[in-house]
């Protein structure tokens, strides 16, 4: 049994190199034990003793992106499963994207789950402004993703917030963008959470854009699950908004219509209205 320990940073690249090498040596899935180690762990094994004929997986366009996404999943068995799928595709026993194969279906489903996690990170990271002596403004955020997505999700923020410095820390890795350079490293500490006056404006907006006459709590929760709430500055308003919705809505219905103001009547007369 060969142990392959992949680094926590650059995991996808390291997996690809290792998988390509092992298939080249003809090592079957059952002879490998995959795991993820520290940020800089590197597998440096030579040709094994139990190899067979070399295999090479030919994949359709888009498959590599799917594999790279699936590799970010938190499931410890993902590396072994993906190697198994690639091994069988290379051997001609499995068609890529054939969902009738349980392992293939699982890889595709995990890639999708990672895609959703990345999308939610792009949506729910909330920056707070930090004091800085530099020329560029500085923002920081704390986010807790389900999967190992920091490296894959970070370039989006670099493209979007090109004229400011920022840090996004997660329980495992931290992405940092300083002077237009993006780096990823193991998290040292959680950024301090301080007051940011704009958060109050945002909370005002959140309260005001909500329509109490159309309460749909389930629809909200399926798109913004509660696990994200603790890092969203607007989330502690939700309970109160839900509680008051029925009363507010009822009050609107019961309120008697008012007479138009004198000004409105004058305007209506000027415009030739009634």
């Amino acid at each position, binding site marked *: 049994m060969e142990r392959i320990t992949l680094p926590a940073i650059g995991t996808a690249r390291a997996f690809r190199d290792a998988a390509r090498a092992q298939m080249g040596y003809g090592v079957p899935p059952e002879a490998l034990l995959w795991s993820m180690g520290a940020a800089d762990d590197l597998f440096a094994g030579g040709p094994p003793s139990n190899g067979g004929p070399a295999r090479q997986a030919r994949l359709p366009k888009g498959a590599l992106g799917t594999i790279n996404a699936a590799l970010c999943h938190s499931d410890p068995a993902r590396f072994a499963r993906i190697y198994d799928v690639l091994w069988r595709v290379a051997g001609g026993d499995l*068609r890529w*994207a*054939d*969902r*009738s194969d349980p392992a293939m*279906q699982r890889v595709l489903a995990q890639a999708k789950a990672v895609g959703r996690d990345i999308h939610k990170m792009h*949506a*729910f*990271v*909330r*920056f*707070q*402004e930090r004091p800085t002596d530099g020329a560029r*403004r500085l*923002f920081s*955020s704390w986010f807790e993703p389900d999967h190992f997505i920091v490296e894959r999700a970070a370039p989006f*923020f670099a*493209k*979007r*917030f*090109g*004229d*400011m410095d920022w840090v996004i820390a997660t329980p495992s890795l931290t992405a940092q963008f300083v002077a*237009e350079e993006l780096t990823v490293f193991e998290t040292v500490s959680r950024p301090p959470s301080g007051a940011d006056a*704009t958060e*109050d*404006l945002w909370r*005002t*907006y*959140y*309260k*005001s*854009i*909500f*329509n*109490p006459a*159309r309460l*749909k*709590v*389930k*629809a*909200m929760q399926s*798109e*913004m699950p509660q696990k994200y709430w603790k890092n*969203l500055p607007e989330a502690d308003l939700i309970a109160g*908004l*839900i509680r008051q*919705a029925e009363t507010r*809505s009822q009050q*609107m*219905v019961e*309120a008697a*219509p*008012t007479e138009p*103001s004198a000004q*409105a009547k004058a*305007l*209506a007369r000027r*415009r030739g*209205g009634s």
Partner: protein
Amino acid sequence: MAGKSLTDKLAILADAAKYDASCASSGGERRNSSDGKGLGSSGGSGICHAYAPDGRCISLLKILMTNFCIYDCAYCVNRVSSQIERARFTPEEVVRLTIEFYRRNYIEGLFLSSGIIKSPDDTMADMIRIVRTLREQENFRGYIHLKTIPDAAPELIDEAGKWADRLSINIELPTQKGLSKLAPEKNLKDIKGAMAGVKDRRDASRVATHRGKRRARFAPAGQSTQMIVGADGANDRTILHQSTDLYQNYKLNRVYYSGFSPIPDASRNLPLIKPPLMREHRLYQADWLLRFYGFQADEIAGQGMLDLEVDPKLAWALAHRGLFPVDVNRASREMLLRVPGFGTVSVKRILAARRHGRIRYEHLRAMGANLKNARAFIVVDGWTPRGMTDAADLRARFAPRPEQLQLI
């Protein structure tokens, strides 16, 4: 009168904007700020940064420039005859809110609308000034949706399309009769004329000059509109026919349906109702069928109103049982798209898998099909519905139990 704080204005002018359902921020021009000289990106799939407890996504800072308005549309919270509190943002305030919200990753951009003040041209010009400042002074590269006023001068529309990703003109109600009754200052001919103007400018902007150069962009994310549902007497068939016309002849990217919802200080001419949320939901489903599933408005709403108990595709299948069960291994794409429980993605996967072998019942779930809805209407290896397709109680299996109807 003491000046209102920014917080007060934001509360008033967001409250006034919430009856507009549009929140899209996808598509359009690909931009980013990786040159370090600006802020923002756009062009991918849109992102919903938050959800309100009404289930609506919050993607854009959706505000009115002002809720003062000289029009008197009965359904509108901002109509001149309403006694609600009024406010007006300065251009700098809108710019500041947009930029500061954007930097904190709260939003994808700005959706700016306004009550009509002084004249349509004055109002449009003020809105354009705000958007131009965002683009030129702040180098803002995020998404901008600008509500367009139908009667504004052509050169103002030209400029609006230059700075905004999306333009929208609300049709408000599906018929002229409804508009005449509830929105006396608006008429369908002007509204559709303005939509045609936007469409023509977009078409022209995408044709290269005779020297092969690209022309200046014009509203690269297209145009959308909104219809209020339940305020006038129009039925679903009328609404869906209007949508079909808008999609086909005016190349609208989206038609939004907004169930008429209680507003503070309602008009005497339009009593408040509980918002018809289920009807609104069915209209969105029907709209999807028109755009992606090859259905015609008359096929799904020929009776006038959509079925509230079951979705329009299932209702159609229940009414056309003679065409089912469909053989999943042989049916055409068009027919597969008509199977309840099969979406465009699962149909694509079925067609791809058929090239490699026969499909079995247990494969369908992995392809994303909803078998609870589909199974009465399909034949596939390992499954036949036998008498289920024609069973008298088939509808009852899908329709909700009576007590759930109270939710509607």
